[in-house]
Protein backbone atom coordinates (compact mmCIF):
# COMPACT_ATOMS: atom_id res chain seq x y z
CA UNK A 1 0.00 0.00 0.00
CA UNK A 2 1.28 3.46 -0.82
CA UNK A 3 2.05 5.99 1.89
CA UNK A 4 -0.94 8.03 0.76
CA UNK A 5 -3.29 5.05 1.07
CA UNK A 6 -1.96 4.08 4.49
CA UNK A 7 -2.33 7.66 5.65
CA UNK A 8 -6.01 7.67 4.63
CA UNK A 9 -6.53 4.69 6.93
CA UNK A 10 -4.58 6.36 9.74
CA UNK A 11 -6.42 9.65 9.69
CA UNK A 12 -9.74 7.90 10.40
CA UNK A 13 -8.55 7.19 13.95
CA UNK A 14 -8.57 10.85 14.83
CA UNK A 15 -11.45 13.28 15.26
CA UNK A 16 -9.18 15.86 13.63
CA UNK A 17 -7.09 14.54 10.72
CA UNK A 18 -4.26 16.95 11.51
CA UNK A 19 -3.37 14.55 14.33
CA UNK A 20 -2.35 12.02 11.70
CA UNK A 21 0.67 14.07 10.66
CA UNK A 22 2.94 12.38 13.22
CA UNK A 23 2.17 8.76 12.34
CA UNK A 24 2.18 9.76 8.65
CA UNK A 25 5.70 11.16 8.93
CA UNK A 26 6.86 8.00 10.73
CA UNK A 27 5.37 5.86 7.98
CA UNK A 28 6.88 7.95 5.18
CA UNK A 29 10.29 7.83 6.88
CA UNK A 30 10.12 4.05 7.28
CA UNK A 31 9.38 3.68 3.59
CA UNK A 32 12.11 6.08 2.55
CA UNK A 33 15.25 4.40 3.92
CA UNK A 34 14.87 5.91 7.35
CA UNK A 35 14.78 9.60 6.52
CA UNK A 36 12.36 12.28 5.42
CA UNK A 37 13.55 13.64 2.12
CA UNK A 38 11.82 16.68 0.64
CA UNK A 39 9.85 14.27 -1.60
CA UNK A 40 8.79 12.15 1.36
CA UNK A 41 7.58 15.27 3.13
CA UNK A 42 5.70 16.37 0.03
CA UNK A 43 4.04 12.96 -0.09
CA UNK A 44 2.81 13.34 3.50
CA UNK A 45 1.64 16.88 2.76
CA UNK A 46 -0.32 15.69 -0.25
CA UNK A 47 -1.93 12.85 1.65
CA UNK A 48 -3.14 15.14 4.43
CA UNK A 49 -3.95 18.31 2.48
CA UNK A 50 -1.21 20.20 4.28
CA UNK A 51 1.62 22.36 2.97
CA UNK A 52 5.08 20.81 2.79
CA UNK A 53 6.26 23.71 4.96
CA UNK A 54 3.83 22.71 7.70
CA UNK A 55 4.92 19.09 7.54
CA UNK A 56 8.56 20.22 7.72
CA UNK A 57 7.74 22.28 10.81
CA UNK A 58 6.54 19.08 12.49
CA UNK A 59 9.37 16.92 11.18
CA UNK A 60 11.99 19.40 12.37
CA UNK A 61 10.63 19.47 15.94
CA UNK A 62 11.05 15.81 16.90
CA UNK A 63 14.37 13.96 17.28
CA UNK A 64 13.17 10.74 15.65
CA UNK A 65 12.38 12.35 12.31
CA UNK A 66 15.58 12.53 10.27
CA UNK A 67 15.98 15.29 7.77
CA UNK A 68 19.25 13.90 6.39
CA UNK A 69 20.05 10.43 5.03
CA UNK A 70 20.99 7.89 7.65
CA UNK A 71 23.04 4.72 7.50
CA UNK A 72 21.47 1.36 6.83
CA UNK A 73 21.81 0.72 10.58
CA UNK A 74 21.45 3.46 13.17
CA UNK A 75 23.25 3.01 16.49
CA UNK A 76 22.52 5.41 19.34
CA UNK A 77 24.14 5.25 22.76
CA UNK A 78 22.37 6.86 25.69
CA UNK A 79 24.76 9.17 27.53
CA UNK A 80 22.44 10.62 30.15
CA UNK A 81 23.38 10.43 33.85
CA UNK A 82 22.69 6.80 34.82
CA UNK A 83 24.11 5.38 31.59
CA UNK A 84 27.10 7.74 31.88
CA UNK A 85 27.77 6.41 35.38
CA UNK A 86 27.65 2.88 33.95
CA UNK A 87 30.31 3.63 31.35
CA UNK A 88 28.36 4.95 28.35
CA UNK A 89 31.27 7.08 27.12
CA UNK A 90 33.50 4.01 26.93
CA UNK A 91 30.73 2.14 25.09
CA UNK A 92 30.36 5.04 22.64
CA UNK A 93 34.09 5.21 21.98
CA UNK A 94 34.20 1.44 21.46
CA UNK A 95 31.48 1.76 18.81
CA UNK A 96 33.42 4.58 17.18
CA UNK A 97 36.50 2.36 16.92
CA UNK A 98 34.70 -0.82 15.86
CA UNK A 99 32.38 0.83 13.33
CA UNK A 100 34.89 3.37 12.08
CA UNK A 101 32.49 6.30 12.50
CA UNK A 102 32.69 9.24 14.84
CA UNK A 103 29.63 10.01 16.96
CA UNK A 104 27.22 12.27 15.12
CA UNK A 105 28.13 10.99 11.66
CA UNK A 106 27.25 8.43 9.03
CA UNK A 107 30.04 6.26 7.65
CA UNK A 108 31.13 7.13 4.10
CA UNK A 109 29.80 3.85 2.71
CA UNK A 110 26.37 4.57 4.19
CA UNK A 111 26.36 1.49 6.41
CA UNK A 112 26.20 3.00 9.89
CA UNK A 113 25.08 6.14 11.62
CA UNK A 114 26.40 6.44 15.16
CA UNK A 115 25.21 8.95 17.71
CA UNK A 116 24.47 9.76 21.29
CA UNK A 117 20.92 10.05 22.51
CA UNK A 118 19.10 11.37 25.55
CA UNK A 119 17.44 9.18 28.19
CA UNK A 120 15.77 6.14 26.62
CA UNK A 121 13.97 5.09 29.79
CA UNK A 122 16.16 2.13 30.71
CA UNK A 123 18.29 3.71 33.43
CA UNK A 124 18.36 0.63 35.66
CA UNK A 125 19.60 -1.45 32.72
CA UNK A 126 22.41 0.90 31.75
CA UNK A 127 24.03 1.38 29.34
CA UNK A 128 21.15 1.39 26.87
CA UNK A 129 21.96 1.33 23.16
CA UNK A 130 19.25 1.75 20.53
CA UNK A 131 19.92 -0.08 17.27
CA UNK A 132 17.31 0.89 14.70
CA UNK A 133 15.12 1.92 17.64
CA UNK A 134 15.30 -1.52 19.31
CA UNK A 135 17.00 -1.32 22.67
CA UNK A 136 19.99 -3.34 23.87
CA UNK A 137 20.30 -3.26 27.63
CA UNK A 138 23.24 -3.47 30.04
CA UNK A 139 25.71 -2.88 27.25
CA UNK A 140 29.28 -2.58 28.47
CA UNK A 141 32.48 -1.94 26.57
CA UNK A 142 33.26 -5.69 26.23
CA UNK A 143 29.93 -6.30 24.49
CA UNK A 144 30.62 -3.89 21.65
CA UNK A 145 32.78 -6.05 19.35
CA UNK A 146 30.14 -8.81 19.52
CA UNK A 147 27.33 -6.40 18.72
CA UNK A 148 29.26 -4.96 15.78
CA UNK A 149 29.97 -8.50 14.50
CA UNK A 150 26.22 -9.13 14.63
CA UNK A 151 25.51 -5.92 12.72
CA UNK A 152 28.06 -6.84 10.06
CA UNK A 153 26.42 -10.19 9.55
CA UNK A 154 22.86 -8.90 9.33
Amino acid at each position, binding site marked *: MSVAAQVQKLRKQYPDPLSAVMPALRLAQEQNDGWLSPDAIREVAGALDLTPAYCLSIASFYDQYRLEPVGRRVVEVCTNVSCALAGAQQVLEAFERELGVSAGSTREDGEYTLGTI*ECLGGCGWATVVAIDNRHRLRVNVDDVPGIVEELRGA
Partner: protein
Amino acid sequence: MPTGDRPMTSSYPQIVFAGTNGGAVLDIDAYIAAGGFTALRKAQAMAPDDVIAELDASGLRGRGGAFFPTGRKWAFVPKPEQLAKPHYLVVNADESEPGSFKDREIMLRVPFRFLEGCLIAAHGIESQHVFVYIRGEYEREFEILRDSLEAMRKADLLGGVTVVLHRGAGAYICGEETALLESLEGKRGQPRTKPPFPAIAGLYAAPTAVNNVESITTVTPVLEMGGAEYAKLGVENSTGTRVFSLSGDVVNPGNYELPHGISMRELIYDVGGGVPNGRALKAIIPGGSSTSVLTADDIDTAMDFTSLVDAGSSIGSAGVIVMDDRCCMVQLGIRVSQFYEHESCGKCTPCRVGTKWVTQILQTIEDGRASQADLDLLLSVCDRIMGKCLCPLGDSDAIAVLSYVDRFRDEYQAHIDLGRCPFDGESSLEGILAPSAMHEAHGHEKVRA
Protein backbone atom coordinates in the same frame (compact mmCIF):
# COMPACT_ATOMS: atom_id res chain seq x y z
CA MET B 1 13.43 -9.22 29.02
CA PRO B 2 14.84 -7.12 31.86
CA THR B 3 12.65 -8.58 34.58
CA GLY B 4 13.78 -12.18 34.27
CA ASP B 5 16.74 -11.96 36.56
CA ARG B 6 15.17 -10.72 39.75
CA PRO B 7 13.85 -12.74 42.72
CA MET B 8 10.31 -13.85 41.95
CA THR B 9 8.75 -12.63 45.16
CA SER B 10 8.87 -9.32 46.92
CA SER B 11 8.31 -9.01 50.63
CA TYR B 12 6.42 -5.80 49.96
CA PRO B 13 2.77 -5.78 48.81
CA GLN B 14 2.58 -5.76 45.02
CA ILE B 15 -0.39 -3.83 43.74
CA VAL B 16 0.66 -2.55 40.31
CA PHE B 17 2.60 -5.76 39.66
CA ALA B 18 0.23 -8.11 41.53
CA GLY B 19 0.03 -11.60 40.10
CA THR B 20 3.10 -11.33 37.90
CA ASN B 21 5.63 -13.22 40.08
CA GLY B 22 8.37 -11.02 38.70
CA GLY B 23 7.32 -11.75 35.12
CA ALA B 24 4.69 -10.45 32.73
CA VAL B 25 1.04 -11.29 32.08
CA LEU B 26 0.69 -11.02 28.31
CA ASP B 27 -2.02 -13.59 27.73
CA ILE B 28 -5.56 -12.29 28.11
CA ASP B 29 -6.95 -15.64 29.23
CA ALA B 30 -4.37 -15.83 32.00
CA TYR B 31 -5.27 -12.30 33.05
CA ILE B 32 -8.98 -13.10 33.08
CA ALA B 33 -8.43 -16.38 34.95
CA ALA B 34 -6.63 -14.47 37.68
CA GLY B 35 -9.55 -12.05 38.08
CA GLY B 36 -8.78 -9.57 35.34
CA PHE B 37 -11.55 -7.16 34.24
CA THR B 38 -13.50 -7.73 37.47
CA ALA B 39 -12.69 -4.15 38.44
CA LEU B 40 -13.94 -2.91 35.08
CA ARG B 41 -17.27 -4.70 35.46
CA LYS B 42 -17.55 -3.34 38.99
CA ALA B 43 -16.84 0.21 37.77
CA GLN B 44 -19.25 -0.04 34.86
CA ALA B 45 -22.04 -0.98 37.30
CA MET B 46 -21.27 2.17 39.31
CA ALA B 47 -22.24 5.73 38.55
CA PRO B 48 -19.26 7.75 37.28
CA ASP B 49 -19.40 9.95 40.40
CA ASP B 50 -19.10 6.84 42.57
CA VAL B 51 -16.03 5.76 40.64
CA ILE B 52 -14.54 9.18 41.30
CA ALA B 53 -15.45 8.86 44.98
CA GLU B 54 -13.54 5.58 45.11
CA LEU B 55 -10.46 7.33 43.73
CA ASP B 56 -10.90 10.13 46.29
CA ALA B 57 -11.07 7.56 49.09
CA SER B 58 -7.89 5.90 47.84
CA GLY B 59 -5.85 9.10 48.12
CA LEU B 60 -4.21 8.16 44.82
CA ARG B 61 -2.11 11.06 43.55
CA GLY B 62 -0.61 11.31 40.09
CA ARG B 63 2.45 9.17 39.52
CA GLY B 64 3.86 11.21 36.67
CA GLY B 65 5.53 13.80 38.85
CA ALA B 66 2.91 16.43 39.72
CA PHE B 67 1.25 14.21 42.41
CA PHE B 68 -2.17 15.77 41.79
CA PRO B 69 -5.08 13.82 43.37
CA THR B 70 -6.53 11.61 40.63
CA GLY B 71 -10.15 11.73 41.85
CA ARG B 72 -10.07 15.51 42.03
CA LYS B 73 -8.64 15.79 38.52
CA TRP B 74 -11.48 13.68 37.13
CA ALA B 75 -14.04 15.70 39.11
CA PHE B 76 -12.85 18.84 37.30
CA VAL B 77 -14.06 17.42 34.00
CA PRO B 78 -17.54 18.91 33.40
CA LYS B 79 -20.36 16.42 32.96
CA PRO B 80 -21.59 15.96 29.38
CA GLU B 81 -24.85 17.71 30.44
CA GLN B 82 -22.83 20.74 31.52
CA LEU B 83 -20.62 20.86 28.47
CA ALA B 84 -21.87 19.03 25.41
CA LYS B 85 -18.53 18.17 23.85
CA PRO B 86 -16.81 14.82 23.46
CA HIS B 87 -14.75 13.99 26.55
CA TYR B 88 -11.27 12.57 26.23
CA LEU B 89 -8.98 10.53 28.41
CA VAL B 90 -5.37 11.06 27.42
CA VAL B 91 -2.77 8.82 28.97
CA ASN B 92 0.72 10.21 29.27
CA ALA B 93 3.04 7.36 28.32
CA ASP B 94 5.76 9.76 27.23
CA GLU B 95 8.07 8.74 30.09
CA SER B 96 11.30 10.63 29.39
CA GLU B 97 12.52 11.91 32.76
CA PRO B 98 16.16 10.85 33.29
CA GLY B 99 16.17 8.27 36.08
CA SER B 100 12.58 7.17 35.48
CA PHE B 101 11.85 3.91 33.68
CA LYS B 102 8.87 2.50 35.58
CA ASP B 103 6.09 3.15 33.04
CA ARG B 104 8.04 1.11 30.50
CA GLU B 105 8.11 -1.87 32.84
CA ILE B 106 4.43 -1.43 33.69
CA MET B 107 3.45 -1.53 30.01
CA LEU B 108 5.74 -4.52 29.41
CA ARG B 109 4.51 -6.58 32.36
CA VAL B 110 0.91 -5.61 33.11
CA PRO B 111 -0.54 -4.23 29.86
CA PHE B 112 -4.05 -5.55 30.58
CA ARG B 113 -4.15 -4.03 34.06
CA PHE B 114 -3.13 -0.74 32.45
CA LEU B 115 -5.70 -0.94 29.65
CA GLU B 116 -8.39 -1.99 32.12
CA GLY B 117 -7.53 1.16 34.10
CA CYS B 118 -7.96 3.23 30.92
CA LEU B 119 -11.50 1.89 30.49
CA ILE B 120 -12.36 2.46 34.15
CA ALA B 121 -11.04 6.02 33.95
CA ALA B 122 -12.97 6.62 30.74
CA HIS B 123 -16.14 5.54 32.54
CA GLY B 124 -15.29 7.84 35.43
CA ILE B 125 -15.08 10.91 33.21
CA GLU B 126 -17.82 9.71 30.85
CA SER B 127 -15.51 9.44 27.89
CA GLN B 128 -15.80 7.18 24.86
CA HIS B 129 -12.39 8.06 23.53
CA VAL B 130 -8.99 7.23 24.97
CA PHE B 131 -5.65 8.29 23.52
CA VAL B 132 -2.43 6.77 24.81
CA TYR B 133 0.51 9.00 23.88
CA ILE B 134 3.50 6.71 24.03
CA ARG B 135 7.02 7.96 23.47
CA GLY B 136 8.36 6.99 20.07
CA GLU B 137 11.39 5.23 21.55
CA TYR B 138 9.16 2.67 23.32
CA GLU B 139 8.65 0.48 20.27
CA ARG B 140 8.29 -2.93 21.93
CA GLU B 141 5.98 -1.43 24.56
CA PHE B 142 3.81 -0.02 21.77
CA GLU B 143 3.68 -3.46 20.14
CA ILE B 144 2.64 -5.13 23.40
CA LEU B 145 -0.09 -2.55 24.00
CA ARG B 146 -1.26 -2.88 20.40
CA ASP B 147 -1.47 -6.68 20.70
CA SER B 148 -3.15 -6.50 24.13
CA LEU B 149 -5.70 -4.02 22.84
CA GLU B 150 -6.44 -6.28 19.89
CA ALA B 151 -7.00 -9.22 22.24
CA MET B 152 -9.41 -7.08 24.26
CA ARG B 153 -11.22 -6.00 21.11
CA LYS B 154 -11.62 -9.65 20.06
CA ALA B 155 -12.91 -10.51 23.53
CA ASP B 156 -15.44 -7.68 23.20
CA LEU B 157 -14.14 -5.92 26.28
CA LEU B 158 -13.85 -2.38 24.96
CA GLY B 159 -17.53 -1.59 25.39
CA GLY B 160 -17.76 0.99 22.64
CA VAL B 161 -14.73 2.94 23.84
CA THR B 162 -12.19 3.81 21.17
CA VAL B 163 -8.59 3.47 22.29
CA VAL B 164 -5.97 5.04 20.04
CA LEU B 165 -2.27 4.36 20.54
CA HIS B 166 -0.44 7.47 19.36
CA ARG B 167 3.32 7.30 19.10
CA GLY B 168 5.52 10.26 19.93
CA ALA B 169 8.71 10.93 18.00
CA GLY B 170 11.35 11.99 20.48
CA ALA B 171 10.63 15.09 22.55
CA TYR B 172 10.85 15.21 26.36
CA ILE B 173 8.69 18.35 26.38
CA CYS B 174 5.76 16.25 25.14
CA GLY B 175 5.59 14.75 28.62
CA GLU B 176 4.24 18.13 29.77
CA GLU B 177 0.48 17.75 29.51
CA THR B 178 -0.35 20.77 27.36
CA ALA B 179 2.61 20.20 25.04
CA LEU B 180 1.44 16.59 24.78
CA LEU B 181 -2.01 17.78 23.73
CA GLU B 182 -0.53 20.12 21.12
CA SER B 183 1.56 17.26 19.78
CA LEU B 184 -1.41 14.91 19.73
CA GLU B 185 -3.34 17.52 17.78
CA GLY B 186 -0.65 17.43 15.09
CA LYS B 187 1.30 20.55 16.04
CA ARG B 188 4.77 21.20 17.41
CA GLY B 189 4.81 20.07 21.03
CA GLN B 190 4.94 23.43 22.76
CA PRO B 191 3.11 24.16 26.03
CA ARG B 192 0.00 26.27 26.32
CA THR B 193 -0.91 28.88 28.88
CA LYS B 194 -3.11 27.61 31.69
CA PRO B 195 -5.98 28.47 32.26
CA PRO B 196 -7.79 27.08 30.44
CA PHE B 197 -6.90 23.76 32.05
CA PRO B 198 -7.19 20.54 30.07
CA ALA B 199 -10.21 19.47 32.16
CA ILE B 200 -12.17 22.29 30.54
CA ALA B 201 -10.37 22.79 27.22
CA GLY B 202 -7.87 20.05 26.53
CA LEU B 203 -7.63 17.84 23.46
CA TYR B 204 -9.35 19.53 20.51
CA ALA B 205 -10.54 22.18 23.02
CA ALA B 206 -12.74 19.55 24.70
CA PRO B 207 -12.88 18.37 28.35
CA THR B 208 -9.86 16.13 28.88
CA ALA B 209 -8.23 14.27 31.75
CA VAL B 210 -4.52 13.64 31.30
CA ASN B 211 -3.14 10.89 33.53
CA ASN B 212 0.13 9.02 33.88
CA VAL B 213 0.51 5.31 33.02
CA GLU B 214 1.22 4.24 36.60
CA SER B 215 -1.72 6.27 37.93
CA ILE B 216 -4.08 4.67 35.41
CA THR B 217 -2.70 1.18 36.10
CA THR B 218 -3.29 1.75 39.84
CA VAL B 219 -6.93 2.68 39.16
CA THR B 220 -7.67 -0.99 38.46
CA PRO B 221 -6.60 -2.37 41.87
CA VAL B 222 -8.18 0.66 43.57
CA LEU B 223 -11.55 -0.37 42.14
CA GLU B 224 -10.85 -4.02 42.90
CA MET B 225 -9.94 -3.60 46.56
CA GLY B 226 -11.83 -0.39 47.22
CA GLY B 227 -10.31 3.03 47.79
CA ALA B 228 -10.33 2.82 51.60
CA GLU B 229 -8.37 -0.42 51.50
CA TYR B 230 -5.77 1.08 49.17
CA ALA B 231 -5.39 4.07 51.47
CA LYS B 232 -4.22 1.77 54.27
CA LEU B 233 -0.97 1.29 52.36
CA GLY B 234 1.76 3.86 52.36
CA VAL B 235 1.50 6.95 54.54
CA GLU B 236 -1.17 9.58 55.03
CA ASN B 237 0.06 12.22 52.61
CA SER B 238 1.18 9.60 50.09
CA THR B 239 -1.04 6.56 50.12
CA GLY B 240 -0.41 3.30 48.38
CA THR B 241 2.61 1.78 46.75
CA ARG B 242 4.90 3.41 44.26
CA VAL B 243 7.11 1.93 41.57
CA PHE B 244 10.52 3.39 42.36
CA SER B 245 13.11 3.40 39.60
CA LEU B 246 16.58 2.88 41.06
CA SER B 247 19.71 3.48 38.98
CA GLY B 248 23.25 4.79 39.05
CA ASP B 249 25.96 3.63 41.45
CA VAL B 250 23.95 0.90 43.13
CA VAL B 251 24.35 -2.90 43.20
CA ASN B 252 20.78 -3.81 42.17
CA PRO B 253 19.37 -1.15 39.86
CA GLY B 254 15.83 -1.71 38.63
CA ASN B 255 12.18 -0.91 39.27
CA TYR B 256 10.84 -1.77 42.71
CA GLU B 257 7.23 -1.50 43.85
CA LEU B 258 7.38 -0.38 47.47
CA PRO B 259 5.05 1.40 49.88
CA HIS B 260 5.34 5.17 50.09
CA GLY B 261 7.16 6.12 53.28
CA ILE B 262 9.98 3.60 52.94
CA SER B 263 13.27 5.22 53.90
CA MET B 264 15.85 6.10 51.28
CA ARG B 265 18.31 4.01 53.32
CA GLU B 266 16.11 0.93 52.97
CA LEU B 267 15.57 1.56 49.27
CA ILE B 268 19.24 2.07 48.44
CA TYR B 269 20.87 -0.39 50.85
CA ASP B 270 18.36 -3.16 51.57
CA VAL B 271 16.51 -3.28 48.28
CA GLY B 272 19.24 -1.79 46.10
CA GLY B 273 22.16 -3.63 47.69
CA GLY B 274 24.08 -0.46 48.47
CA VAL B 275 26.89 1.31 46.63
CA PRO B 276 29.22 -1.11 44.79
CA ASN B 277 32.98 -1.54 45.01
CA GLY B 278 33.26 -0.16 48.52
CA ARG B 279 32.69 3.40 47.39
CA ALA B 280 31.03 6.05 49.51
CA LEU B 281 27.56 7.38 48.83
CA LYS B 282 27.85 11.01 47.76
CA ALA B 283 24.59 12.21 46.25
CA ILE B 284 21.07 11.02 45.53
CA ILE B 285 18.59 12.46 43.07
CA PRO B 286 15.25 11.23 44.50
CA GLY B 287 12.64 11.91 41.84
CA GLY B 288 14.18 12.17 38.40
CA SER B 289 16.64 14.77 37.14
CA SER B 290 14.15 17.62 37.69
CA THR B 291 14.39 17.25 41.47
CA SER B 292 16.91 18.72 43.89
CA VAL B 293 19.88 16.56 44.80
CA LEU B 294 20.24 15.23 48.31
CA THR B 295 23.42 14.20 50.12
CA ALA B 296 24.42 11.14 52.16
CA ASP B 297 23.25 13.06 55.25
CA ASP B 298 19.69 12.75 53.96
CA ILE B 299 19.80 8.93 53.77
CA ASP B 300 17.09 8.45 56.40
CA THR B 301 14.55 10.60 54.59
CA ALA B 302 11.23 8.82 54.03
CA MET B 303 10.25 8.46 50.38
CA ASP B 304 6.93 10.25 50.52
CA PHE B 305 5.72 13.58 49.24
CA THR B 306 5.88 15.60 52.47
CA SER B 307 9.14 14.16 53.80
CA LEU B 308 10.96 14.89 50.56
CA VAL B 309 9.62 18.43 50.44
CA ASP B 310 10.79 18.91 54.04
CA ALA B 311 14.22 17.62 52.99
CA GLY B 312 14.36 20.31 50.31
CA SER B 313 13.59 18.15 47.31
CA SER B 314 10.53 16.32 45.93
CA ILE B 315 9.30 12.84 45.05
CA GLY B 316 8.79 13.74 41.38
CA SER B 317 8.54 10.61 39.25
CA ALA B 318 10.33 8.50 41.91
CA GLY B 319 13.38 8.07 39.69
CA VAL B 320 16.17 7.57 42.21
CA ILE B 321 19.69 8.11 40.86
CA VAL B 322 22.56 7.21 43.18
CA MET B 323 26.03 8.75 42.83
CA ASP B 324 29.19 7.68 44.60
CA ASP B 325 32.21 9.78 45.48
CA ARG B 326 33.75 9.53 42.02
CA CYS B 327 31.14 11.89 40.60
CA CYS B 328 32.05 15.52 39.98
CA MET B 329 29.03 17.66 40.79
CA VAL B 330 29.98 20.32 38.27
CA GLN B 331 30.08 17.68 35.53
CA LEU B 332 26.71 16.41 36.77
CA GLY B 333 25.39 19.94 36.40
CA ILE B 334 26.71 20.16 32.85
CA ARG B 335 25.22 16.84 31.78
CA VAL B 336 21.85 17.59 33.32
CA SER B 337 21.79 21.11 31.88
CA GLN B 338 22.74 19.79 28.44
CA PHE B 339 19.64 17.59 28.63
CA TYR B 340 17.32 20.51 29.33
CA GLU B 341 19.06 22.66 26.75
CA HIS B 342 18.54 19.96 24.13
CA GLU B 343 14.93 19.36 25.09
CA SER B 344 13.82 22.99 25.41
CA CYS B 345 11.02 23.53 22.91
CA GLY B 346 12.17 27.10 22.30
CA LYS B 347 8.89 28.87 22.96
CA CYS B 348 9.92 30.86 26.03
CA THR B 349 13.08 32.95 25.93
CA PRO B 350 14.22 32.43 29.54
CA CYS B 351 14.32 28.65 28.98
CA ARG B 352 15.54 28.57 25.38
CA VAL B 353 18.39 30.94 26.11
CA GLY B 354 18.78 30.35 29.84
CA THR B 355 19.42 26.61 29.64
CA LYS B 356 22.18 27.28 27.13
CA TRP B 357 23.77 29.87 29.42
CA VAL B 358 23.59 27.55 32.44
CA THR B 359 25.43 24.85 30.48
CA GLN B 360 28.01 27.34 29.20
CA ILE B 361 28.77 28.88 32.59
CA LEU B 362 29.05 25.41 34.16
CA GLN B 363 31.50 24.48 31.42
CA THR B 364 33.70 27.49 32.22
CA ILE B 365 33.64 26.43 35.89
CA GLU B 366 34.59 22.86 34.94
CA ASP B 367 37.36 24.08 32.66
CA GLY B 368 38.80 26.18 35.48
CA ARG B 369 38.26 29.41 33.55
CA ALA B 370 35.54 30.78 35.82
CA SER B 371 35.82 33.77 38.14
CA GLN B 372 33.84 34.23 41.33
CA ALA B 373 31.52 36.52 39.38
CA ASP B 374 30.70 33.61 37.06
CA LEU B 375 29.26 31.65 39.97
CA ASP B 376 27.06 34.63 40.83
CA LEU B 377 26.08 34.86 37.17
CA LEU B 378 25.08 31.18 37.19
CA LEU B 379 22.75 31.75 40.13
CA SER B 380 21.39 34.89 38.48
CA VAL B 381 20.62 33.06 35.23
CA CYS B 382 18.79 30.33 37.16
CA ASP B 383 16.76 33.02 38.88
CA ARG B 384 15.87 34.55 35.53
CA ILE B 385 14.43 31.24 34.36
CA MET B 386 12.52 30.25 37.49
CA GLY B 387 8.79 30.81 37.33
CA LYS B 388 9.08 32.85 34.17
CA CYS B 389 8.04 30.33 31.52
CA LEU B 390 4.90 28.51 30.44
CA CYS B 391 6.06 25.13 31.69
CA PRO B 392 8.47 23.71 34.26
CA LEU B 393 11.20 22.51 31.85
CA GLY B 394 13.41 25.56 32.33
CA ASP B 395 12.63 25.54 36.06
CA SER B 396 13.85 21.94 36.24
CA ASP B 397 17.27 22.92 34.92
CA ALA B 398 17.46 25.79 37.38
CA ILE B 399 16.21 23.73 40.34
CA ALA B 400 18.65 20.91 39.66
CA VAL B 401 21.70 23.11 39.15
CA LEU B 402 20.89 25.42 42.06
CA SER B 403 20.71 22.35 44.31
CA TYR B 404 24.09 21.06 43.12
CA VAL B 405 25.67 24.44 43.90
CA ASP B 406 23.83 24.69 47.21
CA ARG B 407 24.67 21.20 48.47
CA PHE B 408 28.18 21.03 46.99
CA ARG B 409 29.27 24.64 47.22
CA ASP B 410 32.81 23.70 48.35
CA GLU B 411 33.29 21.59 45.25
CA TYR B 412 32.14 24.40 42.96
CA GLN B 413 34.39 26.83 44.83
CA ALA B 414 37.33 24.45 44.50
CA HIS B 415 36.99 24.46 40.69
CA ILE B 416 37.24 28.25 40.76
CA ASP B 417 40.05 28.46 43.33
CA LEU B 418 42.16 25.70 41.78
CA GLY B 419 41.50 26.81 38.22
CA ARG B 420 40.69 23.18 37.25
CA CYS B 421 38.46 20.24 38.07
CA PRO B 422 39.74 18.68 41.32
CA PHE B 423 38.89 15.20 39.96
CA ASP B 424 41.78 15.56 37.47
CA GLY B 425 40.04 13.56 34.75
CA GLU B 426 39.01 10.71 37.10
CA SER B 427 35.36 11.67 37.66
CA SER B 428 32.80 9.01 36.74
CA LEU B 429 31.19 11.50 34.32
CA GLU B 430 34.48 12.55 32.72
CA GLY B 431 34.24 13.34 29.02
CA ILE B 432 30.63 12.24 28.60
CA LEU B 433 29.34 13.37 25.21
CA ALA B 434 25.81 14.76 25.16
CA PRO B 435 23.63 15.02 22.02
CA SER B 436 23.66 18.84 22.22
CA ALA B 437 27.47 18.87 22.28
CA MET B 438 27.63 16.21 19.57
CA HIS B 439 25.51 18.31 17.23
CA GLU B 440 27.67 21.38 17.89
CA ALA B 441 30.83 19.40 17.27
CA HIS B 442 29.56 18.47 13.83
CA GLY B 443 28.63 22.01 12.91
CA HIS B 444 24.93 21.46 12.59
CA GLU B 445 22.35 22.67 15.06
CA LYS B 446 19.21 20.57 15.19
CA VAL B 447 16.46 22.90 14.01
CA ARG B 448 13.98 23.23 16.81
CA ALA B 449 13.30 26.91 17.49
